[in-house]
């Protein structure tokens, strides 16, 4: 898929995310919108993961450590054909497998997550297994920035560097917000670049809401042979909808019918403009 097609996809995904959250009357709106461009590029351009190869030990792996942004993941997996998009309507419903955090009961989900600060350790294990078995697959994991205060992430980082896991790609959704407020006001994280470099990563930064920038950054993996890769993906929480962007309350606020209509109108306008440029 080329860059423009990917950009259109991102808009489609945003529309689906907002629609299913509205329908379920629950969900993590801001964090799903901030990371969906990353998932888009990974699933549609970078990773070799599909319903056809999901049993193949050589497939790439994706672990979503910031499990609360599950609506983005479920949306992309439906589009990849792991299940019918109609199933997204059962999100959070009685007896549905589509619960509010990733679960392996849903086809295409690699690892159950939802408690923050677990995904990186699991991804390190998967990457280590790849090295031990001489397989060429890569392991991608997505973390929130607020999530980084969980100490386990740093424990896993030391192991990753120690075992020279250059088949591991850690992506930080650096949207600058958590539930209580801006990360730098809650518990300051900066300088993240220095911290991650000190922990042994090869670090790159990019605009995590720009599919072109993401493509170019991910194409450079491995950044340095023998070092785990880390991408500081600078994003906007709630990206794509003017009144949701950068608003603390939208961490898990659900759009009303009126808000959904307004959001979809904004996204459709962006879509129309993009199609005009493409024509």
């Amino acid at each position, binding site marked *: 898929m080329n860059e423009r097609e990917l950009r259109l996809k991102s808009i489609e995904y945003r529309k689906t995310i907002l629609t299913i959250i509205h329908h379920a009357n629950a969900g993590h709106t801001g964090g799903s919108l901030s990371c969906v461009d990353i998932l888009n590029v990974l699933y549609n351009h970078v990773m070799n993961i599909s319903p056809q190869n999901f049993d193949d030990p050589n497939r790439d792996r994706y672990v979503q450590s910031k499990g609360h942004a599950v609506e983005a993941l479920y949306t992309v997996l439906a589009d990849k054909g792991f299940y019918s998009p109609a199933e997204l309507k059962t999100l959070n419903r009685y007896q549905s497998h589509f619960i*509010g*955090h990733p679960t392996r009961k849903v086809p295409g989900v690699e690892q159950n997550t939802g408690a923050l600060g677990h995904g990186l350790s699991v991804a390190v294990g998967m990457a280590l297994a790849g090295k031990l078995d001489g397989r060429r697959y890569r392991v991608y994991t997505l973390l929130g920035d607020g999530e980084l*205060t969980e100490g386990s992430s740093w424990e896993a980082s030391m192991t990753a560097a120690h075992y020279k896991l250059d088949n591991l790609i850690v992506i930080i959704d650096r949207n600058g917000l958590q*539930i*209580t407020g801006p990360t730098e006001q809650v518990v300051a994280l900066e300088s993240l670049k220095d911290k991650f470099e000190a922990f042994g990563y090869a670090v790159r930064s990019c605009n995590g809401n720009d599919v072109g920038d993401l493509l170019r950054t991910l194409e450079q993996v491995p950044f340095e042979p023998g070092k785990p890769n880390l991408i500081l993906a600078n994003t906007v929480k709630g990206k794509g909808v003017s009144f949701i962007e950068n608003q603390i309350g939208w961490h898990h606020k659900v759009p009303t019918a009126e808000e959904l209509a307004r959001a979809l109108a904004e996204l459709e306008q962006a879509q129309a403009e993009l199609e005009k440029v493409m024509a």
Partner: protein
Amino acid sequence: MELGRPNLEEFAATLLELAHRDRNVLVLTSDSRGSGKLVPFASALPDQIIEVGIAEQNLVGIAAGLASAGKKVFAVSPACFLTARAFEQIKNDVAYSDRPVKLIGISAGVSYGALGSTHHSLHDFAALRAVNNLDILAPADNFETREAIRAAYHHPRPIYIRFGKQPMPHVHTPDTRFEVGRAITLRSGTDVTFIATGETVPRAVQACDVLAERGISAGTISMHTIKPLDEEALLIAAQTSRALITVEEHSVYGGLGEACAAALMQRGVFKPLRIVGIPDEYTVTGSQAEIFAHYGITPEGLAITAQKLLAVESVR
């Protein structure tokens, strides 16, 4: 029963009162002040709230350190993360080291409903009962919550209190007395007694009404303290009714039910008994109410369990 507010809000209001009177009261949060309804607390007493970030192990360890300096520390985090993620800090830094930290598990049990198992705490009674020097409470209504938080303030030992976030009906009359470790008998029944805890208590009380209409005399005890267990109240219930049913928002393993069964059997009391809780399976998806209904934790579900148990009993 008249509907009150969520126990979560009652907790936050009570804590604010205590903290206004005593500057030594500190509340610790792990990006959990919003979920804990503590935003008003943070505006009113910004110097008495400490934020550690999303780091529950850190939260409990720091709480132990502050308590060692005489601070009255309420460590507030969702029950699931507080008791699973920080279990070793609870065991070693708080209980074993005897630091009287007040561990507050919010949105406990299956309060988080469809957010799934990562967010449920169906293990906390079981895990924490096996830790020495830690009292465990699950208040039912606003009154029990307020009293439990006030008691925690004075409590000389480590204490864990967990509750949910739905508005709760008032189950008590104004003259009720509350004491840690003393169950409260809400109603007596000669056929069956429900020994319930936390948010299941009003459902048990309603089940008594359902059963009364069917000619069965049922009672309810609010066992707000899981540890130390009020064995005296349990024995009285066993003497005065033909059967016992425990009810809890917890796994059927290791919680109130097994605590009661062990206490009775070791005293040589053999009674027909059912443990109602969340069975040992991949928990069904749904809201708290849907999960309760699925597993029979409703007035009707509990009444049917009682009728079946009494039928078996009368055949014997």
